[in-house]
């Protein structure tokens, strides 16, 4: 019996290792993205560094300017240079947007296991990141580009886990329905690893900062955030609000958990949440434009 359990554990470990190896299947991080990530992770980064990175890539600069000039940001004046973009939006936001303009690669394809058609995962990632940015601004947090980027990339694990979820969907769904557990806990129970943990492994492999790795790992488990940490709660909350609005919701539905103490930690009332939903719904067309520019 003990032997049986040990053998099963070994088989499970092998399966998990196989899944983790598939991280190599993702399109690699470009040099430029790596450099932008350095800026985002370093609060002392300067405008000169950012300009230095993007100025040699005309396509990227043009794309970044289109993003900054999109209706979502509602700037009165048309921006024609990265320097100007930073003057209007701040280096933090421009770095976030440069990241958005360079991250769609792995997110475009349909994810049949999660019942998401082509482009839906990217649309959702952008929406969720903008929502997190909005909430972080409301709470005057100072690491907004880090929060934005973590929210943008937090579901990268789904891209790999997708085929496994597809194969095991019945068992996962059964666990959700009969035990009342969350979809992510059911992923772990049935497959052996969940999309957030897998996403954190990707983030580690791509040399993301430990703070970002931690946000990605716990974006559905904010109760694991350190007391006083607001980054994980903000990304979690943004995700919940998007789910309630039906954004990016696939076969996992809304089968995640509401943590009242986390909502309280953020000082969000139900009215705040409803107002955020109402405010966001007025921007859906502008978000769609951003999705299309950044995904192109």
């Amino acid at each position: 019996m003990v032997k049986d359990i040990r053998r099963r554990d070994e088989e499970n470990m092998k399966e998990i290792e196989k899944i983790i190896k598939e991280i190599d299947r993702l399109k690699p991080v470009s040099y430029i993205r790596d450099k932008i990530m350095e800026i985002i992770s370093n609060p002392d980064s300067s405008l000169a560094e950012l300009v230095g990175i993007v100025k040699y890539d005309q396509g990227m600069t043009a794309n970044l300017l289109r993003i900054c000039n999109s209706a979502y940001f509602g700037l009165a004046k048309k921006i024609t240079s990265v320097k100007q973009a930073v003057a209007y939006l701040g280096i933090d936001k421009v770095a976030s947007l440069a990241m958005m303009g360079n991250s769609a690669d792995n997110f475009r394809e349909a994810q049949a296991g999660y019942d998401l058609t082509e482009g839906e995962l990217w649309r959702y990632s952008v929406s969720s990141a903008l929502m997190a940015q909005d909430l972080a601004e409301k709470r005057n947090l100072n690491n907004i580009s880090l929060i934005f980027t973590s929210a943008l990339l937090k579901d990268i694990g789904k891209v790999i886990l997708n085929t496994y979820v597809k194969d095991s969907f019945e068992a996962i769904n059964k666990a959700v329905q009969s035990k009342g557990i969350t979809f992510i806990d059911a992923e772990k129970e049935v497959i052996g690893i969940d999309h957030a943990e897998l996403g954190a492994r990707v983030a580690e492999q791509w040399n993301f900062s430990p703070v970002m790795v931690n946000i990605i790992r716990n974006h559905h488990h904010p109760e694991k955030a350190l007391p006083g940490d607001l980054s994980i709660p903000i990304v979690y909350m943004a995700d919940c609000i998007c789910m309630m609005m039906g954004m990016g919701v696939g076969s996992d539905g809304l089968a995640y958990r509401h943590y009242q103490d986390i909502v309280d930690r953020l000082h969000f009332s139900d009215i705040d949440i409803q107002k955020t939903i109402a405010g966001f719904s007025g921007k859906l067309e502008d978000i769609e434009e951003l999705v299309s520019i950044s995904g192109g």
Partner: protein
Amino acid sequence: MNLVVGVGDMKVSNDPESVLVTYSLGSCIALAIYDPVAKVGGLLHYMLPESSLDVQKARKNPYMFGDIGIPVLFKETYKFGAKKNRLQIIVAGGSQILDQKGLFNIGKRNHTVLRKMFWKNNVMIDFEDVGGTVNRTLKLEIKTGQAWLKISGAGMKKI
């Protein structure tokens, strides 16, 4: 032809060629109504229960809120000859995240506002699929009044 009803949106049609469809409801509610005699139907996708939250936004887009979106949906179909006593009524959506309680359960509140209004106005629901944690999509064919419901993880089913 598919006429997509967006989030916080409504469409009414008597064009027999058109199919009204609204995707990915989350905690929002889709209300579809259809008069088989006048062959007119309407579909509303509202997100929040009460317009008192933001009167200005409500004035700009009444379809965002159940309390004012629902009456507008009925009135718009009356313009095309629909009669209240003939209307077939379908309700879907109102899902919730696990453990969302009280005021934070917006899916449930979205449903409650509709139930209250229907109770007061003697409106009977013919088919309803609400709550739980699933995501839903609803479709209504104007020619026949046939509706379809898609629940996340499962295919489209005739109602």
